[in-house]
C-alpha cells in the first residue's frame, strides 16, 4: 500500500505544475484555463486524500516516507536529492493546501470572470500551489527553499496581477523585497547547517552511491550542541542556526519586524489573498518551524525570541485590525495576529497547537477572505467598509458563511477557532503569564474587530447607493458553504481529550498532549464568554453608529483615542519607520549616486576615458598619414633600433 | 707571366674580332643590297669600285661627314649614349662564339677528341674562341637581352612621338621574344648537357642538332629574327608607320652605329644558330683533312690548316644563314603589331615549352642513343609545327587579312 503512496506523492506537486505549464503554453481562453487549473489542483487534492488514507492505514510501521526521485545536485560533498518527505506533518499540510487551494480555484473561476488576464492568473495560481506543495513535501532544505522562493515569486506575480495599478505594483515589489530579507536569513541558516552536518536533508536516507547513509541534519542534532562563542555571550550553535531560520520565518510568515508586506498584499485579487493568508505562503514559516522542531528543542534562547516575537505580532496585528476601514486589510491584520498566535505556540513548545491553529485558521480565514471577496464583488469592487452596510439582506449566503468564519475567528464555542486558539491560550496560561495576558487581550481584540466588521458590512442600512448588491454566483458561494461547514467541524481533529492530531503527529513531533484539566475548562469558558461579549458589544456599538458614517468620516472611537487609533490604523507606523529609516536614506543615497556620482563620477570617468582615447587616437591617427614614405621611415627606425641593439648591447 | 700573356692575347683577340665584325658588317650591307637587288630583278650598287666593292667605304665616308644633329628637346646624355649602348652588346656577344679550332701548341686531334683536351683552360688550346667560359649560352642570352636598351633608350631620348613608339614597341617585342628564344635554346642545351659553347659544338660532331632540335631550330630562327628586329619583324623601324622608328632623330655616325649594331646582331645570331644547330665549325672530313696533311706538313701545320678551314667552314655556314635572312626580307611582308605579339606569346611560347618538355622526356627516357633520340624528337618537332600551322589557319574566310605587296626597303 505504501508503494502506491510513493507512486502518488510525486504527482501532488506535479499535477498543478502541469496545469501551470499547460496554462502557460497552450491554453488561451479563460474558461479552459480555469477548468484545467481547478481540475489539476482538485485531482491533486483527491490524490492527497487517497495518499493520506493509505498512509494513515499503513503508516504505523514507518514514521515517514522518503521518496527520492532523482539527485538534483550530486557533487560528492553536496548531495541534494529531489526527494519528497511524506510524513504525518507534510500529509496534513498537503491536505490543507490542496483542499483549500481547490476551493479557492473554484471560487476564482467565478471571481475572475471577465478579467483581462485570466489565463495568466490561473497559471500563476497553479504554480503557487505546486510550489507550496514542493515546499511542504521537500525532504531537504534546499528543495524546501525552492518552494519557498517559488511561493515568493508567485505571490509577487499574483499580488501584482493588476499591475496597471501603481499600488498593486508597489505592493508586489514590497512583498518580494521584504521576503528576500527573510530569505537571506534562511539561506544563511542552510549554509550553516551544511557546514555543520554536511547535509541538507531532514532525515537520514540511503546514500546515492548505494552504500552508507546520507545523514539528515535533524538526525544529527549533536552537531548543533557545540558552543559557539558569540562576542560577549556564548551560545549553542543550534541557537544561531534556528535564529537564522527565525529570520526567514518572520519574513515569510509576516512576523514582527517584517510583517509590513502582508497588509499591502491585499492589492492582489481576493482569492489570491485567501490563498496567501490561508493555505499557502504565510503558513510556510510556521511549517518550517514545525519541521525543524528538533533544533528548536535544543535552543531555549530562540524559542524565547519566537515567543516574544509572536506575542508582539499578535498584539500589533489585533490592534491594527481594529482600526482599518478596508474590509480586506482588517482580515490581513487579523492574519498577522493569528500567525502571531501560532508562532507563540511554537515558542511555547506547543507544536501541535500551532499546527492545529494553522489548520483551522487556514480554513476559516480562507472562508473570511472568500466571503469578503464575495462582498467586494457584490459591492462593485468597493473595499471601504464605510461605503457598505446592510448587505445582510442582499447577500444571505455570504452573510451567514461570513458570520460563521467571524465567530470562529473570534473563538466562539464550538467553532474551529475556539478549539485551536483556546489551546494556545491555555498553553500560554500554563507557561508564561505575561504572554498569556498579551494573547488574551489580542483574542478579545479579535472579537472586537470582527464584531465591528460584521456590524459595518452586513448590518444597518446601505450607506452608499452607487452600486446594487447582488448575491455572488454559485461558483463562489458553494466554496463558501463548504468552508463554512469545514469551519464548524474542523475542531474535531484535536478535541481536548481525543488529541487526534497529537497522536497523529507523534512520529514527527515528540510532544505529549497537554493535560486537560479543570483550569483549562474554566479558562476556555472565560475566554469564550469574554470573546462573545466583546463581539456582541462591538457589534452593537458600531451597529448603532454605523448610519452616521460617511466616506471620509472618522471611526466612532477616534474621538476618544485619537492618535492611538491613528497609530493602529497605520499598523504601528512600521511602514513609516521603514520609510524613514531605510527607504529614505537609501533613496537619498541613490539620488546622490544618480544625480551627482553618476553624471560627475562615472560619466566623467567614462567621458574622460573616451576623450583621452579620442585624443590619443587623433594623435596616433596623425602618424597614419597615408604617406608610404612615413611608414617606411618608421620601419627604418625599427631597423636601426634592432640593429643597434644587436650591435651595441647583444653582441 | 701567364696572366699577362693571356691579357695581351685577349686584347689582341678582342681587337681582331671587333675589327673583323665591323668589316663583316660593312660588306654584309653590300651583300644584302646586291642580293636584294638580284631578288628584285635589278642590279644594286655597282659603281664604287669593281662590282661596287667600295660601296661600304663610300657609305662610311658619307656618314662620317654628315652634319651631326642633336634635337633640341632630346635628353642629351641618353640620346648620346644610346647608340653606344646599342653597339656594345652586338660586339661583346662574339666573345663566347667558337669561330673555329686551331690548337696552336697541341695537335688538331684535340679539336675532335675531348679526351685529348687535357689542358682545357689553357689559352693556347683553342685559339679562336675568345673566352671559353662554362656559362657561355647564358652569356649569350644575357647579352641579347641587353640589346633592347639601345633601341628603347634611343626612342625615348629623341623625345619624338615616332621614336618613342618605336622604342616602346621594341621593348615589348624584345622582352616577349626573349622568352621563346631562351626556351628554344634550352632544348639544345639539354641535348648537349652543357652551357659551354665549345662543348656544345663538340657534342654535335657528326650529328648536328638541327635534326633532334628541329622544332627548337625553327623557333630559334623565328624568335631570333624578331630579337634582332629584322624583317618581317622590323616593326620598330617601320617607315610607313613610324617614319623610321627609334632612329628617326638620329643622323650621321650615330645612325651608323645603330645600323651597324643591327647587322652585327644579325651576324651574331646567325653564328649562334650555326653554333647551336649546325655543328659550329664542324664539317665532315675535317679530321680526315688533318690526318692527310699532318704527314706532309707536320702536326702544327695540319693544326693550322684545320684551324683555318674550320673557320672558313663556320663563315660559310653563317653566310648561308645571312643569305636566308636577306631572302626572307625580300619575300615576306611585315607583320601587324598585334599579330607579332600573338605569334610570340600564343604560338612560339607554347611550342617552345612543348619542345623543352619533349626534349627533357626523350633525353631521360632514351639516355644513350642520340640517333634514336634525334629521330623521335625530329618527328615530334615536325608534328608540332604542322599541327600549329594547321591550327593557325584562319577558320573563316572573312578573317583572312589582306596581304599587301612585300615591303622592300633599304636603309638610308
Amino acid at each position, binding site marked *: 500500500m505504501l508503494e502506491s503512496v510513493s507512486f502518488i506523492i510525486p504527482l501532488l506537486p506535479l499535477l498543478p505544475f502541469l496545469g501551470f505549464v499547460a496554462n502557460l503554453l497552450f491554453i488561451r481562453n479563460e474558461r479552459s484555463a480555469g477548468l484545467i487549473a481547478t481540475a489539476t489542483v482538485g485531482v491533486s487534492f483527491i490524490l492527497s486524500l487517497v495518499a493520506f488514507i493509505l498512509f494513515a492505514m499503513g503508516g504505523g510501521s514507518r514514521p515517514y516516507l522518503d521518496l527520492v526521485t532523482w539527485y538534483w545536485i550530486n557533487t560528492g560533498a553536496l548531495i541534494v536529492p529531489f526527494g519528497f518527505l511524506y510524513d504525518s506533518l507534510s500529509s496534513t499540510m498537503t491536505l490543507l493546501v490542496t483542499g483549500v487551494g481547490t476551493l479557492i480555484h473554484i471560487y476564482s473561476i467565478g471571481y475572475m470572470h471577465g478579467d483581462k488576464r485570466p489565463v495568466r492568473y490561473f497559471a500563476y495560481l497553479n504554480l503557487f500551489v505546486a510550489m507550496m506543495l514542493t515546499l511542504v513535501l521537500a525532504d531537504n532544505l534546499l528543495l524546501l527553499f525552492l518552494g519557498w522562493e517559488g511561493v515568493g515569486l508567485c505571490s509577487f506575480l499574483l499580488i501584482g496581477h493588476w499591475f496597471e495599478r501603481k499600488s498593486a505594483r508597489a505592493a508586489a515589489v514590497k512583498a518580494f523585497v521584504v521576503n528576500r530579507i527573510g530569505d537571506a536569513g534562511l539561506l544563511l541558516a542552510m549554509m550553516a547547517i551544511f557546514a555543520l552536518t554536511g547535509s541538507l536533508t531532514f532525515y537520514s536516507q540511503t546514500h546515492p552511491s548505494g552504500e552508507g547513509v546520507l545523514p539528515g541534519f535533524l538526525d544529527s542534532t549533536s552537531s548543533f550542541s557545540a558552543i559557539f562563542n558569540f562576542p560577549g555571550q556564548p551560545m549553542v550553535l543550534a541557537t544561531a542556526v534556528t535564529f537564522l531560520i527565525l529570520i526567514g520565518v518572520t519574513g515569510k510568515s509576516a512576523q514582527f519586524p517584517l510583517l509590513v508586506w502582508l497588509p499591502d498584499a491585499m492589492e492582489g485579487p481576493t482569492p489570491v489573498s485567501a490563498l496567501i493568508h490561508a493555505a499557502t505562503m504565510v503558513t510556510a514559516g510556521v511549517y518550517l518551524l514545525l519541521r525543524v522542531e528538533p533544533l528548536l528543542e535544543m535552543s531555549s534562547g530562540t524559542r524565547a525570541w519566537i515567543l516574544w516575537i509572536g506575542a508582539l505580532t499578535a498584539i500589533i496585528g489585533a490592534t491594527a485590525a481594529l482600526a482599518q476601514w478596508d474590509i480586506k486589510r482588517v482580515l490581513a491584520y487579523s492574519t498577522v495576529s493569528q500567525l502571531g498566535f501560532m508562532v507563540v505556540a511554537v515558542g511555547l513548545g506547543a507544536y501541535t497547537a500551532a499546527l492545529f491553529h494553522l489548520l483551522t485558521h487556514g480554513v476559516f480565514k480562507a472562508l473570511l477572505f472568500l466571503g469578503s471577496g464575495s462582498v467586494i464583488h457584490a459591492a462593485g469592487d468597493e473595499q471601504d467598509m464605510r461605503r457598505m452596510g446592510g448587505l445582510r439582506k442582499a447577500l444571505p449566503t455570504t452573510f451567514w458563511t461570513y458570520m460563521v468564519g467571524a465567530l470562529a475567528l473570534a473563538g466562539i464555542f464550538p467553532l474551529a477557532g475556539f478549539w485551536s486558539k483556546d489551546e494556545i491560550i491555555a498553553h500560554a496560561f500554563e507557561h508564561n503569564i505575561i504572554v498569556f495576558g498579551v494573547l488574551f487581550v489580542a483574542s478579545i481584540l479579535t472579537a472586537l474587530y470582527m464584531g465591528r466588521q460584521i456590524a459595518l458590512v452586513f448590518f444597518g442600512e446601505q450607506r452608499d447607493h452607487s452600486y446594487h448588491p447582488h448575491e455572488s454566483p454559485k461558483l463562489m458561494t458553494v466554496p463558501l458553504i463548504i468552508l463554512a461547514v469545514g469551519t464548524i467541524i474542523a475542531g474535531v481533529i484535536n478535541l481536548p481529550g481525543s488529541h487526534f492530531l497529537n497522536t497523529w503527529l507523534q512520529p514527527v513531533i515528540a510532544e505529549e498532549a497537554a493535560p486537560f484539566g479543570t483550569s483549562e475548562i474554566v479558562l476556555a469558558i472565560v475566554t469564550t464568554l469574554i470573546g462573545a461579549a466583546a463581539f456582541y458589544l462591538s457589534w452593537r456599538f458600531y451597529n448603532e453608529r454605523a448610519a452616521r458614517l460617511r466616506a471620509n468620516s472618522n471611526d466612532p472611537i477616534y474621538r476618544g483615542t485619537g492618535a492611538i487609533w491613528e497609530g493602529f490604523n497605520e499598523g504601528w507606523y512600521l511602514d513609516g519607520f521603514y520609510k524613514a529609516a531605510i527607504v529614505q536614506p537609501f533613496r537619498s543615497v541613490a539620488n546622490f549616486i544618480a544625480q551627482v556620482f553618476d553624471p560627475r563620477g562615472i560619466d566623467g570617468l567614462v567621458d574622460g576615458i573616451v576623450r583621452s582615447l579620442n585624443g590619443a587616437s587623433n594623435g596616433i591617427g596623425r602618424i597614419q598619414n597615408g604617406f608610404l614614405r*612615413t611608414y617606411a621611415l618608421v620601419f627604418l627606425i625599427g631597423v636601426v633600433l634592432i640593429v643597434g641593439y644587436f650591435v651595441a648591447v647583444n653582441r | 707571366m701567364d696572366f699577362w700573356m693571356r691579357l695581351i692575347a685577349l686584347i689582341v683577340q678582342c681587337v681582331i674580332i671587333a675589327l673583323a665584325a665591323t668589316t663583316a658588317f660593312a660588306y654584309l650591307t653590300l651583300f644584302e643590297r646586291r642580293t636584294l637587288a638580284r631578288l628584285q630583278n635589278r642590279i644594286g650598287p655597282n659603281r664604287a669600285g669593281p662590282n661596287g666593292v667600295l660601296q661600304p667605304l663610300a657609305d662610311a665616308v658619307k656618314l662620317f661627314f654628315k652634319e651631326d644633329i642633336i634635337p633640341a628637346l632630346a635628353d642629351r646624355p641618353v640620346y648620346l649614349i644610346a647608340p653606344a649602348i646599342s653597339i656594345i652588346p652586338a660586339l661583346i656577344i662574339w666573345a663566347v662564339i667558337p669561330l673555329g679550332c686551331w690548337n696552336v701548341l697541341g695537335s688538331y686531334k684535340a679539336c675532335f677528341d675531348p679526351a685529348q683536351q687535357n689542358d682545357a683552360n689553357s689559352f693556347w688550346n683553342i685559339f679562336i674562341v675568345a673566352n671559353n667560359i662554362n656559362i657561355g649560352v647564358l*652569356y649569350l642570352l644575357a647579352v641579347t637581352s641587353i640589346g633592347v636598351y639601345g633601341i628603347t633608350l634611343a626612342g625615348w631620348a629623341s623625345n619624338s612621338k615616332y621614336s618613342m613608339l618605336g622604342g616602346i614597341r621594341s621593348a615589348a617585342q624584345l622582352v616577349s621574344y626573349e622568352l621563346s628564344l631562351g626556351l628554344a635554346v634550352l632544348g639544345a642545351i639539354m641535348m648537349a648537357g652543357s652551357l659551354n659553347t665549345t662543348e656544345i659544338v663538340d657534342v654535335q660532331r657528326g650529328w648536328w642538332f638541327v635534326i633532334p632540335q628541329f622544332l627548337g631550330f625553327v623557333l630559334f630562327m623565328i624568335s631570333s629574327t624578331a630579337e634582332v628586329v629584322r624583317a618581317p619583324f622590323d616593326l620598330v623601324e617601320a617607315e610607313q608607320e613610324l617614319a623610321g622608328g627609334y632612329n628617326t632623330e638620329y643622323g650621321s655616325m650615330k645612325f651608323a652605329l645603330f645600323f651597324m649594331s643591327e647587322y652585327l646582331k644579325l651576324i651574331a645570331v646567325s653564328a649562334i644558330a650555326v653554333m647551336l644547330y649546325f655543328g659550329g665549325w664542324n664539317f665532315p672530313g675535317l679530321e680526315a683533312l688533318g690526318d692527310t696533311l699532318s704527314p706532309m706538313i707536320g702536326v702544327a701545320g695540319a693544326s693550322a690548316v684545320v684551324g683555318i678551314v674550320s673557320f672558313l667552314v663556320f663563315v660559310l655556314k653563317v653566310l648561308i644563314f645571312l643569305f636566308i635572312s636577306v631572302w626572307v626580307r625580300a619575300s615576306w611582308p611585315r607583320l601587324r603589331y598585334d599579330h607579332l605579339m600573338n605569334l610570340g606569346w600564343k604560338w612560339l611560347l607554347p611550342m617552345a615549352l612543348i619542345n623543352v618538355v619533349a626534349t627533357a622526356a626523350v633525353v631521360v627516357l632514351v639516355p644513350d642513343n642520340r640517333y634514336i633520340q634525334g629521330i623521335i624528337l625530329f618527328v615530334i618537332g615536325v608534328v608540332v609545327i604542322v599541327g600549329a600551322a594547321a591550327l593557325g589557319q584562319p577558320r573563316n574566310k572573312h578573317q583572312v587579312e589582306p596581304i599587301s605587296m612585300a615591303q622592300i626597303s633599304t636603309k638610308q
Partner: protein
Amino acid sequence: MELAIFIITALIALVGAGAMIMSRNAVHSALFLLLNFAAIAILYLLLRAPFLFAVQLIVYTGAIMVLFLFVVMLLGAERAEDERDAIAWQKPLAIGLSVILFIEALIVSFRNGFAALPELSAEAEQIGAPETIGQVLFSKYLLPFEITSIILLVAIIGVIVLNQRRKTVS
C-alpha cells in the same frame, strides 16, 4: 689585381646607386641602376658566382629594368616630383637614420676585421658553376624551387588580372 677590379667596380656600383637616387629623371635613375646592377654582376664574377652573374644580367638588366623603363615610358612618368614635398620634415630624419644605420654596419665590419680570404681550391671554385647550383637546386632546395615557381605563376595571373581591361557590357 683583383682588389683593383673590386675597387673600381665597387665605385661604379656606389656611383650608380647614388646617382640613381639623386637623379631627377626616372629614366636616368633606371640607367644608373642598370649600371649598378652591371657592377654587382661583375662583383658576382669576382665572388666565383658566374651563374649568378648570368642570372643577374638576364633577369635584372634584361627583364626587370626593361620593365621599369617600359613602364616609365608608357606612363610618361619620368618626372613626378614637381610639387613641394608634403612631408619635407622627414628628410633630415631619414638621412640621419640612414647614416646611423651605416655607422652600425661600419661598427660590425670593423669588429669583424679585414682579413683577406684564402684562395679557393679548384674544387671549391665550382661553388658557382651552373652544374653545382643545378644539383643543389634540384635536391636540397627542391621545395623552395617549386614554391618559387608557384609564386611566379601567381604573379603572372595577378598581373594579368590587375591590368585587365574591364569588358563593357553592351
